[in-house]
């Protein structure tokens, strides 16, 4: 089985982020990290390999991003990936969700994986969707929010949390699985692995290398337009009650709750 893990370099969650007033997009020039959710995906791949039920020939880390995204790949390799692929091209900058999924699907096609794993969300705004988008372009079955996964020959048995509780779903490979952070506890890389990461093969690919059509991606290919950025609506200042007669106070609270239909 060949596993490709999609990873993403994102701004550090603990560092305050700012909007770039010129591009009206997130200022990504600051501190970055490998998306923490993707470390769970890499760990999941490693556990399939170490589990022994299925033969894993290769774990390949794949990313789409600017030049600096190679750091996310080094981190992924230090966590266990055998090699990495970096899709980077100026024409891809400003791609919207659909275009990003399309571009990732094209680079994944060139690798022909049996299983694609990724973290279900990232701290920079994209939630629960990129896996499903990539899967549709690849015409593979997909599941999101998977928190338990057992691999067998030809299929996976997954547990995922949806609207009505936990679903158990069997899914044939090749498939795209987005994992939640509850699925495992990612390992820490050893110092040796961190230092060795630079030496593992890293292939850089351009958009044309993988057959991406220029008009489907990038700023001009975007199907949404940001009209403006505004401060959030002024929250009305809250009411304060000084408790003197607790009986009275409690009555006021109950009517307040009732007004807002919170006692249904």
């Amino acid at each position, binding site marked *: 089985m060949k596993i490709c893990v999609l990873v993403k370099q994102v701004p550090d969650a603990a560092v305050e982020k700012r*909007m770039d007033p010129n591009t*009206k997009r997130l200022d990504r020039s600051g501190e970055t990290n490998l998306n923490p959710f993707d470390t769970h995906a890499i760990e999941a791949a490693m556990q399939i390999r170490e589990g022994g039920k299925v033969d894993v020939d290769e774990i390949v880390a794949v990313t789409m991003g600017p030049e600096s995204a190679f750091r996310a790949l080094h981190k992924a390799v230090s966590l266990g990936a055998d090699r990495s692929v970096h899709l980077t091209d100026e024409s891809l900058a400003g791609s*919207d*969700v*659909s275009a990003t*999924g399309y571009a990732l699907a094209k680079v994944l096609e060139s690798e022909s994986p049996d299983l694609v794993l990724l973290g279900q969300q990232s701290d920079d*705004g994209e939630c*629960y*969707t990129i*896996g*499903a*988008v*990539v*899967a*549709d*372009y690849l*015409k*593979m*079955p*997909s*599941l*999101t929010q998977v928190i338990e996964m057992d691999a067998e020959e030809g299929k996976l048995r997954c547990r*995922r949390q*949806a*609207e*009505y*509780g*936990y*679903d*158990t*779903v069997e899914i*044939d490979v090749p*498939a795209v699985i987005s994992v939640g952070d509850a699925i495992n506890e990612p390992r820490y890389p050893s110092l040796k692995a961190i230092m060795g990461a630079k030496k593992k093969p890293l292939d850089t690919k351009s958009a044309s290398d993988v057959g991406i059509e220029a008009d*489907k991606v990038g700023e001009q290919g*975007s*199907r*949404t*337009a*940001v*009209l403006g*950025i*505004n*401060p*959030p*609506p002024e929250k009305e200042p*809250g*009411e*304060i*009650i*000084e*408790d003197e007669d607790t009986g009275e106070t*409690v*009555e006021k*609270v*109950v009517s307040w*709750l*009732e007004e*807002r239909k*919170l*006692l249904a």
Partner: protein
Amino acid sequence: MSILTYALHHQGDFNKNSLGAVSAAGKLAGEIGGEAAAVVVGEGDDLSDELCASLGKYGASKVYRAKAPEGLAQPVVDVMAKVIQDEGYKYALFGGGLLGFEVGAGLTARLGAGVTMEVTAVKAQDGKLIAERPILQDSAIVDVDYVGEPGIIIGRLNAFDPAESGGGDAEVVDVDVQLEDHSTKARMIQRGESGEEEVNIEEAEILVAGGRGLGKAEGFELCEELAGALGGAVAATRAVVDAGWYPYAAQIGQTGKTVAPKLYLAAGISGAIQHKVGMQNSENIVAINKDPNAPIFEFSDLGIVGDLNKILPKLTEAVKAKKG
């Protein structure tokens, strides 16, 4: 036809976020001079004409019903793609929730459409829909427009409230859809099991959270009683989890869980930012604290300055009485 929505159902009941999406679609469709419809997908008899038609109450004029596996997203994508292409819908609107996210995402790819996620509000402007989504920890809101059709709107969890519009029964239309090959590769083995943990903090609509002001671990009994009366769950701050008063699974904050329930009642919590970032999107925030200077009062909707040991039990009683 303007707006198509997806109504998820389970054992004869429609999901609340789906009803919210249908309600929102109904209202918005009126504002842009069109109509709203819903798609339901399932295999069982519980998808009766009556059940489907009831979506009209929430603003759907038509309901497309398809027979395909339940609880999985990709078959729904096939159905909705066909309906949108055949009938020319301009927007697809989804309520928050995993299937909403997955279906909306798959549809985005299928139709090469523009999509906005985590949407908290939608407004009609010059015959178009503009989606609003918060960014940067809710410190700013972005207005997003669509290029071409259709435009896909995926709401944040609980962003849209179900509201009956007073409409009559919707027209129920059965559609026949040839599923894509890959949409048949997943099989539901067991649907909708509740987990080992009794309650999922992140999904609870009402949370009663306790902090250091409770004074001691036993103080959580007061929170549990009130939560029981309100029909909610109990949450905790980092400080009390550190002190061993409550388990880590209930911790809210920067290093715990992030929640956005309809009601967050904070008892004995000062409101330090490490906690605030985990619950600031709660719809209604009520705080009880004996310190009038506690930062939590700066962002609570209702603040009570007083002794929680007196207030919580009395409040529990009053809530029980009111609910009857």
